[in-house]
């Protein structure tokens, strides 16, 4: 199981899902309409490191974070 967190304005409680790669996470999240609408505009971190590839392997206990559009300052 990996934990998926939704940061900032997504405002959704974390989910626990079965996933071996980020591609598995993507497939699962697309099924949830509330989350799916954020996917196009969100960046992704695994264990708080920003990632750019779906091939990232995931292991038990990993945390995947979705970061929607930002505006600091």
């Amino acid at each position, binding site marked *: 199981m990996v934990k998926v967190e939704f940061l900032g304005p997504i405002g959704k409680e974390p989910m626990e899902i079965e996933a071996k790669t980020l591609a598995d996470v*993507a497939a699962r999240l697309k099924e949830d309409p509330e989350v799916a609408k954020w996917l196009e505009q969100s960046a992704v971190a695994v264990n708080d490191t920003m990632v750019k590839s779906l091939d990232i392997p995931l292991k038990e206990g990993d945390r995947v974070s979705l970061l929607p559009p*930002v505006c600091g300052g």
Partner: protein
Amino acid sequence: MLKIYPGPLPVSELLSEWYGAHYDENYGAMVNFVGTIRDEGGIDALSFDIYLPVLQKWFDGWKAKLESKGALLMMAHSEGDVPVHTSSFACAIFSPKRRVALEMLDAFVEDFKANAPIWKYDVREGKRIYAADRSTPMDGSGLLAGDG
């Protein structure tokens, strides 16, 4: 050094503290940027969420980049509500060379706007509304939307 404050920043104290901590370390130039909440669109305040673990890594990356140029970086940001005409963001760069200070201030502030994991909300009549129209997708956004 990255500091997060609940509510508005004590700007004068921060600038004085930063200058006082490093003025005698032979940096020829200090530059600062301070962001203050503008009174526009009828808001009472802006409010900020921060995801600190990623913000800290982003900041540490910039700090290392500046250190490789012989320069120092420090920054403060607010979390929660920041009323109009108070400040939510401040930073300082100390450098032996003025060109490094000026160019890195510009590059740092622009990357901050684009990639620091901070979310902004308008506060109107006690309600917090995500500032979607002023927000920017971070580098690498859309990864999970592809056909993977």
